[in-house]
């Protein structure tokens, strides 16, 4: 039997490379609006239905860049750490209604957004991973599907790194 439920996977991202000397307030704010405000807004507008159903899943797509030494990304890293923090806090507020909130941290993934990167740049990334290949969208989807399943009903407020073993937390 299948029951009605709502899952929100928020993966919008904005990531211009700007050194701290080049970064302006407009870019900072647009990055936060896209990468972090959006999580708040998704919760604000989807929570009421989830609460009514006593079931829901929020997945915030963060980034393994929070643990990497990549210059020019201070604004982006701030929002992606914010995503982890928001999911942790949201998890506390919604747990009583059967709702979980988790963050997924992909690495550099083979999408249209990364297409402009040269093969050398891509290779330089995946050579730092334990699994020596480019991350594909399917790699991320597997983790998302698990976290949105009932098998993961006791997992909430967590940050799951899905990057082939590049960034290790412990």
């Amino acid at each position, binding site marked *: 039997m299948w029951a*009605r439920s709502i899952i929100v996977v928020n993966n919008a991202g904005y990531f211009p490379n700007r050194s701290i000397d080049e970064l302006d307030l407009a870019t900072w704010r647009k990055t936060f609006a896209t990468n972090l405000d959006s999580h708040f807004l*998704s919760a604000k507008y989807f929570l009421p239905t989830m609460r009514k159903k006593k079931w829901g899943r929020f997945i915030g797509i963060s980034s393994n860049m929070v643990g990497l030494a990549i210059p020019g990304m201070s604004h982006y890293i701030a929002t992606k750490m914010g995503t982890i923090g928001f999911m942790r806090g949201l998890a506390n507020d919604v747990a009583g209604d059967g709702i979980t909130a988790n963050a997924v941290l992909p690495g550099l993934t083979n999408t249209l957004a990364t297409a402009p990167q040269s093969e050398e740049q891509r290779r330089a990334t995946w050579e730092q991973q334990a699994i020596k290949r480019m991350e594909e969208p399917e790699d991320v989807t597997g983790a998302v599907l698990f976290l949105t399943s009932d098998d993961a009903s006791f997992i909430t407020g967590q940050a799951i790194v899905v990057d082939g073993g590049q960034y290790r937390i412990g």
Partner: protein
Amino acid sequence: MKGESHWSPVPAKASARRLRWRWQNAAQVIATDLAPPHETARRIGPTAHALQLDVTQEEQWRSAAARIRDVGEVDNRRE
């Protein structure tokens, strides 16, 4: 990684295949992007809908939530 990008990578083509495998005949999926991602919705299958959503705009989130009520909620839970 110089320059700007504004994107919504999942569900992309490969992800769409996984979503279709998991949710075929069971789920209503709403895929969103700055422009309605019709191709992604087509790859997921007939239960997918494409919706324009600028995630920075509160009113558009309100509309998206209303659209969920229109198409029915996502089914993914097995009991």
